[in-house]
């Protein structure tokens, strides 16, 4: 498969005061796809993004955007990309239109180009009505739309979105997703960070799961889920001391792929649930091992994340927001 490559990241590393935020990262983003960097807060995805948009210099390795180096050709890279930072990157005192006018000057558009493009963008993100109100009167969703209009103003080949739906209500999220898909239709390559699994799953063509500054898994969400192998049966066992015994018994049953012990019971990967489930229950019965709860589901991106990082993304996000 030789798809045109938009972004080439090669052995990228970034160290802050002895902490390796990004460690030997390599991946490619194909032209015209939506590429997601998925990981908990502090995983290194924002650092990676900020290197790609030329705001940080890597400590080692390199990143190129359409062949232009993020350090040596920074100015040309900046002309090629659009950037949508996290939500509050808005000047409360300026109106939506003034934001776009300011950026038009910073991208050196002529007055004619600016006055042609700005109304189009306001229409695209449905902010025409509010264009001349100060941004402090905008709702979260409206600010996000303005952010996106700002990112699209330079007519970029690659658009970078940092946590595009963080803190938005469900309706606004879906709207933003529509906008992101519309960008792909227009041929824009989209690179976004997210710590929402469902967002990565439904929106991204391919994702890189990042944890501890390293890539843990890379591919299309569907591919990654299939790659886990089989559906998942989770058992919660009442008497914890029996878990090991049950695990040994289950391992040798037909249609079982893998068995892992969890805090409360077992996670079992199975090939065909209709064969495996009765056999598992029978084994539990035989060993008089009482089951408190049985959960069966097809692999979700959640499971991909846990399989590759050894923990759930949700735990981390909650800890971060509490801390």
């Amino acid at each position, binding site marked *: 498969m030789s798809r045109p490559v938009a972004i080439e990241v090669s052995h990228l590393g970034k160290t802050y005061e002895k902490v390796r935020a990004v460690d030997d990262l390599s991946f490619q983003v194909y032209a015209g796809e939506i590429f997601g960097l998925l990981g908990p807060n502090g995983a290194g995805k924002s650092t990676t993004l900020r290197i790609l948009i030329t*705001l940080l210099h890597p400590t080692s390795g390199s990143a190129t955007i359409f062949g232009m180096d993020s350090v040596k050709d920074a100015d040309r890279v900046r002309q090629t990309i659009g950037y949508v930072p996290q939500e*509050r990157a808005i000047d409360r005192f300026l109106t939506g239109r003034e934001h776009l006018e300011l950026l038009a000057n910073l991208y050196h558009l002529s007055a004619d180009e600016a006055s042609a493009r700005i109304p189009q963008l306001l229409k695209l993100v449905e902010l025409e009505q509010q264009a001349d109100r100060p941004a402090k009167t905008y709702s979260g969703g409206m600010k996000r739309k303005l952010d996106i209009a700002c990112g699209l103003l330079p007519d970029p080949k690659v658009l970078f979105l940092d946590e595009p739906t963080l803190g938005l209500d469900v309706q606004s999220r879906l709207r933003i997703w529509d906008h992101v898909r519309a960008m792909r239709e227009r041929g824009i390559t989209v690179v976004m960070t997210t710590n929402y699994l469902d967002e990565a799953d439904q929106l991204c063509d391919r994702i890189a799961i990042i944890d501890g500054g390293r890539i843990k898994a890379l591919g299309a969400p569907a591919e990654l889920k299939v790659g886990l192998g089989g559906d998942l049966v989770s058992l919660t066992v009442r008497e914890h001391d029996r878990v090991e015994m049950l695990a040994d018994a289950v391992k040798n049953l037909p249609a079982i792929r893998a068995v892992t012990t969890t805090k409360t019971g077992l996670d079992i990967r199975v090939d065909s649930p209709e064969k495996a489930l009765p056999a598992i229950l029978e084994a539990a019965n035989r060993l008089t091992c009482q089951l408190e709860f049985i959960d069966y589901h097809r692999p979700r991106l959640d499971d991909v994340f846990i399989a590759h990082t050894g923990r759930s993304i949700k735990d981390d996000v909650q800890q971060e927001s509490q801390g």
Partner: protein
Amino acid sequence: MKEYWQEIRALTMRWVLRLSREKFSMLFTLVQPMLFWLIFFGNLFQRAADMQVTQASSYISFLTAGVVVMTVLNNGLAGGVDLLFDKENGFLERLMSTPIHRTSVILSRFIFVTTITSLQVLVILAVAWLFGVQPVTGLLGVATILFIGMMFGVGLTAISMAMAFSVKSHGDFFSVLGFLSLPMIFLSSALVPLAAMPGWMGFLAQFNPMTWAIDAVRPLILQGWTEALPHVGMVIAVMVLFDALCLYGGARAFRRAIG
């Protein structure tokens, strides 16, 4: 070059727009306190201040130079605040992700702060005039005062921006700001001439660039060119050094923060 000006003009206009939207808070926080110093302090100490010591016909005429330079001090030290907020809310990153010259944002800030400060100095001088203080060196003297203010302001704004780029939180920024400004004022010739200060304070005040600025502005208002010129020459030399140091520090902080 054309692009550079387009950037700087647009960024400077943003500060102007912000000011016009926040006009009440800006007016009250920036212009008023300094006017109060002039009007209340100036008149309050009229009889308490010894004219033999101040060498001026009234305390308010003595104080005018001090208030002018204090205005420069306050505006300069607060000059980085907006960049601090831009840094904290990510707007600076947005600006820096565009293909602008790396210095444009900073330059726009210098232009804006200098312009606003000059306007405020003119307001101070106008109010002082209402209380009978007329700069004896006339309009050229006023222009020289503005020039000295600009030179001092550039260095102060550079310090403020360096701090804005270096601090971890805006709480730190404002505590350092609050900590700096009072000693800067009291350890200068703003309120009392150096000769009348307690020895140790007078000694410290000599190293305060603010003292040099005030000692040049004051004769421009009170005495005349003959007395003022040596001081003006001196302050220009001092300010070139001061600005060079501050700009060097500011550039380093900026490069560390922006990369």
